[in-house]
């Protein structure tokens, strides 16, 4: 999913402290937020926007196609159901620690509605120079500037570091997609790769993975079928086995989810794997056949 300026956004939990900060940043960036949802505060204005009791109520009064969820874990499922029933075609769930059973229901319902669920536990979507939804520093010119590299990441913080490295090296970002750090998520890394593969602005794709699960292995198989170059980094090489490394999905259990398995799958499918994020820009530049001297940045 690549977010566009024409995507009109309804923000669940708009009146909260964090949502107020981030929605303010989104509005300043040009993202068209049409209003908010808070079942306890219908009828008020917040950030100059109307607040409704539900997406259903909102849909009677305004048009939106995207729902951004700043809601507590207990409300993620009901908010998703509300958003999808009201016709949202994209649901971006930022919430961390949503029970897996609820996530499964969210995924199943999004599929039934032919809608796109991003997350949970995602940092959101950024289309530099155009729009963003979520909790990424799109407005920070050191981290995001328009360009040709699509970035897919399970982690928001690592995604930020990778975008920073690309921009510092003189490259730019066509789109960022945070898929989320949970074991079960709506849009997978493989699906995000598929979207970037057909995006005209995207010339190369960076996949930021981590230990746990098999998302990188699945994305690797797909990468072999597309013509755009894919560069990857996998976090967690030094992580101890059997420990959950912050993200619910980042755990090596037995033989599945290991760093070695992911790197093997990626390399076997022609994906260049960077040893550290700082090595990503050169691999991308090589793949795009950009000569180093044509790039500029604080490092050169």
């Amino acid at each position, binding site marked *: 999913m690549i977010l566009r300026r024409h995507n009109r956004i309804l923000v669940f939990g708009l009146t909260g402290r964090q949502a107020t900060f981030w929605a303010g940043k989104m509005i300043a960036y040009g993202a068209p937020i049409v209003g908010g949802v808070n079942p306890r505060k219908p009828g008020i204005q917040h950030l100059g926007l109307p607040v409704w009791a539900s997406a259903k109520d909102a849909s009677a009064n305004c048009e939106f196609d995207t729902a951004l969820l700043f809601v507590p874990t207990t409300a993620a499922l009901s908010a998703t159901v509300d958003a999808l029933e009201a016709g949202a075609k994209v649901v971006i769930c930022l919430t961390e620690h949503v029970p897996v059973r609820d996530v499964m229901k969210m995924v199943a319902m999004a599929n039934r509605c032919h809608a796109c669920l991003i997350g949970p536990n995602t940092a959101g979507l950024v289309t530099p120079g155009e729009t963003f939804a979520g909790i990424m520093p799109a407005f920070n010119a050191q981290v995001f500037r328009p360009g040709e590299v699509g970035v897919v990441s399970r982690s928001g*913080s690592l995604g930020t570091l990778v975008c920073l490295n690309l921009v510092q090296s003189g490259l730019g970002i066509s789109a960022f997609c945070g898929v989320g*750090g949970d074991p079960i998520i709506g849009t997978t890394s493989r699906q995000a790769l598929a979207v970037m593969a057909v995006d005209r602005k995207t010339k190369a794709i960076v996949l930021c993975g981590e230990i746990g699960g098999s998302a990188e292995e699945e994305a690797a198989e797909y990468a072999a079928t597309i013509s755009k170059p894919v560069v990857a980094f996998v976090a967690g090489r030094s992580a101890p086995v059997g420990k959950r490394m912050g993200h619910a999905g980042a755990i090596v259990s037995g033989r599945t989810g290991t760093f070695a398995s992911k790197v093997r799958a990626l390399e076997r499918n022609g994906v260049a794997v960077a040893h550290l994020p700082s090595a990503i820009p050169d691999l991308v530049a090589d793949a795009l056949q950009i000569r180093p001297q044509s790039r500029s940045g604080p*490092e050169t």
Partner: protein
Amino acid sequence: MADFCEHVGKVLLAEAGIAVPEGVLVRAASQAAAAFDELGECVVKAQVPVGGRGLAGGIQRAGNAEETARAANEILGMHIGDHDVTTLLIERQIQTCHEFYAAILNDTASRGPLLVFSTAGGMDVENSFTLAPAKSVKYSISLHTGLSFDTARRAVSHLVGGESVDSVADTLARLYDVYLDTDAELVEINPLAIDMTGKAMALDCKLVVDDSAISRQPALAAQKAHRPESRLETKAARSGLKYIDLDGSVGILANGAGLTMTTMDAVETYGGKPANFLEIGGEAYTIAGTATELLLDNPDVRSVLVNFCGAFARTDVMVKGVIESWKAIDPQVPVFFTVHGTGDREARAMIRRDLGLEPFENMDDAVRAAVAAGSSK
């Protein structure tokens, strides 16, 4: 992961109508001998939430009261997989004619529940799938329709003998109810035995409940197996921080799981060893000061690396917290900062003004400096 001991899982199975052997929970050898008088020939089983109990000697058969007491004495006080054995389950011995493996788990590939069933119960199932793939089945369950008796029967009928198939299918449908009711990540019966009358019976139970759902399972939360953790891990958990003790000397403070892992990887790449995993992502970014105290409480830390890439976590808020704690503790170890993303301009200004330090422009340089300082005496 919320792990549970066998006896907790078996109570849930029994409540769901799955047959389990008659048993008694004991904490002393004398109680074990008394349990023999009630049960007859029995099995003495260590109650620790880890695999490999049998290999470790934590499961023993006993034919009389003396043997039962002796086995109990031996097993109590054992240390299996980081757990001290303090509780035993004494169960009536069951004569079996076949042992299957059955589990229902959260499947990341199908993004729904998955039934895993194998004819090779009681052994390493991961291996049995590769050795004899024809003898096992994986069946994706739709949350919408669930796992009925008929569906379960169709899924496994080619693997189970005619007489027992109904009993096995009934057990699997009930196992699915347990999976649903407990918010399980995994509920496993291994072995699922067929007794001499052809009926299915659960001889063991492994239950792992989704951490994110444990707060809506209060009855289960109270019975959660205690996880062995270090002094600092306990302290971190009380503050709501994700902390893991490691054995190196470079203390790491970063925001977000992905960035923290990457920072550890970079420390190792440049020849150092991380002293910890500690991330202050999510709402925890507001307690960076508490995290700093925790990090400095580890006597093995010889240098500190602070790597912030602010998205949701505002680096100005985090750096303010770190500086306040740093000044209050005044530790005699060097600290190296690299800070980017949301709020970074203010954050860097604070580091220069309040600590007189220059933050590193890129992560690799900061890591190299922290490793060099943390390795020298």
